[in-house]
């Protein structure tokens, strides 16, 4: 966790120093108060005390109390600043880091986990910092200070205090040892509980179709009962804590008094008075000592929780960038060409190759399609072009330049990439189509409209209440899957790229839209090169070049007609989708 503190700015270290200073001041004043308090008590107890003296001591005490209040508030302001800065700085770092990570790394972390790491985990650590800063600074200060005040007074009292601290720590440790493994268990059981509920909800139609309502309820009750039992046990163990703490504190005060009584009665007259006032003072400071240790114990209880979060944050921050940016951003000799030269790819820690020895060349204006069953590597292949992954062997060339040599911005400017699952951002229809930066001006209104028209999105957009200014919810939940896909395609068109990359972008469209879109696109982008990954034979039948992939190997290359004649895998896929006559064989 302390590794994360390195991210603090200089200003924050000054804040920390100031916080320590003011907390020290507060502790000092707080420990001064018992003296005035006992003075007041003594004065009130003694007959015939002067009113002035009481007022003086009272005034001093209030002054101390007020001073302590003021320094706590000032220290609090610094601590709050430290916490807020921590979140601000670390969140920004994580966010920047994630933007730099490779797609592969992001998939491995999983988006959900990265979101939690950016938000909840940072909050967790911040809470410990703000809570801990106070206690972590206060507890040792207050403990040592109080110990100094009472040290050497009397070994019997010190022993009593020591025993009390020992009992308290032993209780806390025992309780924690009993409870912490159960906490983890509860977490697991809650996950199971969620799991059962989730499957019931996701499969609600199936549950009802099978009349399995009672079955699901019973299934749910098992982890539910277990959770209830474990939580009850944990609660009961934790219930020991507070009474024990009170017992220890009360016990220690009482012991100090009893020890005091015995000592006083045995001592010489001259020592009696000192012993008595020592006793009163000692008992107040003993409580301070015990409280300080209690605080330390609490810190040790909350630190592990933050530790887990801190580790998860560091895991992200320590991830090295696997994709290094190149430097090329000049004019290229060729335009609209993509070439794979003996490309192989495997994940860094995997043994098996996902792609093996792939070579092909797409010329300007050509359409090249990729087909194959799931896991054949067609998506991976296409993802090598925008450098979402880097090749393991061989190289990919865009416009005759190795993609690794490009400045990523320069490379991306040439590409219009449409993923399998349309990515839609909250905003408006226009902002989604005009998304991003291609080095030129933002697309004009007209350009947006043209792009929408080509992408077959015009008709549905114009039916929306505010047309191009209509609000689009996060992840596009207020429009349908096909509409999202068409917006994503419009976005690529508005970017006006040299090369289109369709990563299975047509599957979400029905046959009819699919066909008319491809036709409009062909007319609009005569000069652009298209690389298409598809599942439907119908989508790619007319491509200039079709590459058939099977388990990462290229098992066929050619036109539809050629492949129907000489590629077994292609024929199998084709026949499973259309009948012979339909395939015009």
């Amino acid at each position, binding site marked *: 966790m302390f590794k994360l503190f390195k991210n603090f700015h200089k200003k924050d270290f000054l804040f920390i120093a100031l916080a320590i200073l003011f907390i020290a001041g507060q502790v000092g004043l707080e420990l001064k108060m018992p003296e005035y308090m006992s003075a007041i008590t003594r004065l009130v107890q003694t007959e015939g005390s002067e009113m002035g003296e009481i007022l003086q001591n009272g005034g001093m005490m209030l002054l101390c*109390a007020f001073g302590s209040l003021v320094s706590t508030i000032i220290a609090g302001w610094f601590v709050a600043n430290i916490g807020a800065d921590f979140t601000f700085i670390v969140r920004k770092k994580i966010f920047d880091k994630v933007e730099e990570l490779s797609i592969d790394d992001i998939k491995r972390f999983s988006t959900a986990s990265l979101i939690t790491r950016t938000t909840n985990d940072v909050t967790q650590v911040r809470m410990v910092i703000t809570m801990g800063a106070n206690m972590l600074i206060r507890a040792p200060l207050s403990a040592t200070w109080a110990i100094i005040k009472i040290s050497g007074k009397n070994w019997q009292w010190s022993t009593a205090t020591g025993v009390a601290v020992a009992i308290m720590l032993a209780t806390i440790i025992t309780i924690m040892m009993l409870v912490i493994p159960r906490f983890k268990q509860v977490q697991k059981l809650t996950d199971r509980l969620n799991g059962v509920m989730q499957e019931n909800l996701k499969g609600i139609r199936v549950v009802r179709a099978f009349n399995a309502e009672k079955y699901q309820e019973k299934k749910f009750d098992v982890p539910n009962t277990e959770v209830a039992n474990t939580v009850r046990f944990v609660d009961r163990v934790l219930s020991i804590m507070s009474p024990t703490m009170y017992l220890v504190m009360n016990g220690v005060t009482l012991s100090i008094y009893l020890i005091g009584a015995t000592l*006083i009665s045995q001592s010489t007259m001259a020592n009696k008075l000192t012993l*008595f006032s020592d006793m009163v003072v000692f008992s107040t400071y003993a409580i301070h000592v015990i409280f300080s240790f209690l605080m330390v114990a609490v810190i040790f209880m909350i630190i592990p929780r933050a530790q887990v979060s801190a580790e998860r944050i560091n895991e992200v921050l320590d991830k090295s960038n696997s994709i290094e940016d190149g430097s090329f951003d000049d004019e290229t000799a060729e335009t609209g060409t993509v070439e794979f030269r003996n490309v192989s790819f495997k994940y860094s820690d995997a043994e098996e190759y996902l792609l093996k020895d792939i070579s092909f060349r797409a010329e300007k204006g050509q359409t090249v399609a990729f087909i194959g069953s799931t896991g054949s590597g067609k998506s991976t292949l296409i993802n090598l072009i925008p450098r*979402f992954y880097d090749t393991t062997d061989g190289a990919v060339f865009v416009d005759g330049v190795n993609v690794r040599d490009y400045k990523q911005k320069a490379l*991306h400017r040439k590409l219009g990439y449409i993923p399998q699952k349309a990515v839609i951002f909250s905003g408006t229809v226009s902002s989604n189509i005009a998304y991003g930066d291609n080095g030129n001006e933002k697309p004009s209104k007209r350009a947006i409209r043209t792009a929408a028209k080509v992408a077959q999105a015009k008709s549905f957009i114009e039916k929306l209440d505010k047309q191009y200014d209509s609000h689009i919810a996060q992840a596009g939940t207020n429009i349908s899957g096909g509409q999202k896909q068409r917006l994503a395609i419009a976005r690529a068109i508005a970017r006006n790229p040299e090369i289109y990359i369709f990563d299975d972008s047509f599957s979400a469209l029905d046959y009819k839209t699919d066909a008319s879109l491809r036709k409009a696109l062909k007319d609009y982008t005569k000069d652009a090169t298209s690389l298409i990954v598809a599942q439907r034979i119908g989508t790619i039948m007319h491509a200039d070049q079709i590459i058939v992939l099977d388990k990462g190997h290229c098992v066929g290359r050619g036109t539809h007609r050629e492949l129907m004649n000489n590629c077994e895998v292609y024929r199998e896929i084709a026949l499973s989708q259309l009948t012979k006559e339909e395939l015009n064989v």
Partner: protein
Amino acid sequence: MFNGGPGGRRGGQETAKNFGKALRRMLTEMRTYYVLIAIAMAMSIVGSILSVITPDKLANITDEISAGLVIDRDKIGNVTQELMTNPNENSVIDGITVTPKDKFAFASTLKELQAEMGETKEFSQEDALRLYRAIDELPESIQAIIKPKMNLDIIWSLAFLMIALYIASAILEYLEGFILARVTAGFARDLRNRISHKVNQLPLRYFDRNQIGDTLSRVTNDVDSVSSSIDNSFSTIIGDGSLLLGSLAMMLITNWIMAVVAIVSSLFGFVFMAAILKKSQKYFMQRQVELGNMNAHIEEVYSGIAVVKAYDGKETADRKFNKLNKKIRNANLHSQFLSGLMHPIMAFTGNLGYVAVCVTGAILTMNGMISFGVIIAFITYTRLFSSPLSRIAQAVGNLQPAAAASERVFEFIDEEEMASEQHINHRIDKTAILGNIEFDHVKFGYDDKKTIIKDFSAKAKAGQKIAIVGPTGAGKTTMVNLLMKFYDIKAGDIRIDGISTKDIARADVHSLFTMVLQDTWMFSGTVRENIVYNHKNVDDKRIMQICDTVGLSHFIKTLPKGLDTDMNESESISAGQKQLITIARGMVEDAPFLILDEATSNVDTRTEELVQKAMDKLMEGRTSFIIAHRLSTIKNADLILVMNDGNIIETGNHKQLMAKNGFYADLYNSQFAL
């Protein structure tokens, strides 16, 4: 603004729409635990009474100890008198023999003391010390007489009483926690089971409108929030409440002027605190809102990272992030700072109360209106009064999010359920059903405003094959919803073997259909459990027989534990194999009607053939409704329902529809177009 993604956790700082109502509801729902709660309350109250008593006893001990410091003047008088009357003889005082030599020593010490102290009447601290030191030098016999004696017996008996009280109140507090643990855990379990039961009583309409994440969050987060607040807040409010009332009563009984002073000075801090609480609430809310916005933004960027990269959207993303991050920093700073003020202010209030009570007490004593004991007592009462006040304030603050959570839980529990079926007492025997089905002028819409199926009539005889086709989003699942009676139709009728489905209980309708959907629904458990599901009396022989039929047996043999392999553990189960398992599950069901979603996307060609064969087997002898994705299915179907925009726009067989040259023909031809 958009608040978090599906299933996103909501922050804990929400406020209930109607705090009082939510709280009352929560209390009513806890009916079954009233006895336990009452016992816990009683214990808590007794414990609080003990806490009010014990400080008093400690004061008594202090008094006894300080009594042991005071020299008995009478005794000194006695010795002096003996010295005067019999200076040269042994005298016996209090059973102690004092020799003339001792008496002489005593006399000379006294003289010395008088000389040192001079004429002044005032008796300073120094003088006291001098006197005590002088006593230490006196002969033992005289020391034994005049030295103050502490009554250790009384001290010890007081101490034992206190130990007993301390232990008693500790035990009471523990027992209270013990009982409340049962109440909270039990209540949470009840609530969860009620939600689990409720899920299956709701009309499907509910799940169309609400996200799964939302219901899940009610089951875990919200129930947790409710139960932990009962645990913490209730015990605090009960325990500290009685402490507060107890000390208040004690104060008023003891002395009303002092009571007013103590209360006013405590309230002074409390007012401050309430003001701060209110102000910090604003920042907490703001933080929650901004955190939600940031969550949404991060989710968007992270999940769309490929597009962000490929389109160089980093700058836009960064700009928005920085803006949100700054807002959160500000809200964090202020909420943290303000909430951090509570504690020191309360501590200061406690000290203020202490001084106020002491000063007022001193004035009153001087005027002879109260005794010293009252001041000592009030010092304790002020502490007892002010600390629960702040704890209660915090507990009430914590109840806020809990009340909001309980509102959500009960809102779900109170959701309108499916229409009652009590009037249907006709039971259907599924083995006697032939499998004829008739749609008679069916009208349907998901909401009252829009009718999507306007007037649909069709007939299918037992064993026939009905294909449902249409572009994505055309409403093919609507047909499933109507057939399964997941939704009620608005007008017209659907008849099975001539019986209106309105007169058949939902459970019976379900039992007539085998449903295999594209979404291969697997649940946690073994392969066997997934195949058998809720059917009883299905032995391994029957399972293997079915697996043979659908072509699963080879696959099952390759699994490490065969049928007992856990679905979660085995990542190697492919989409196609899952589909086969779903089909096997449908076979176990063995109903006269079949609803089948034919989609086999994400399945490799070889598995697809297997799945196809298994589906064909499943269709044998059943009246089948097939959501078609394959031309071969459509072509040889007895009846084709063509759907678009939710409505059934054409019906007929392949030939008839192609001849019509309408939507179907268009759709059919489009797949060969460029």
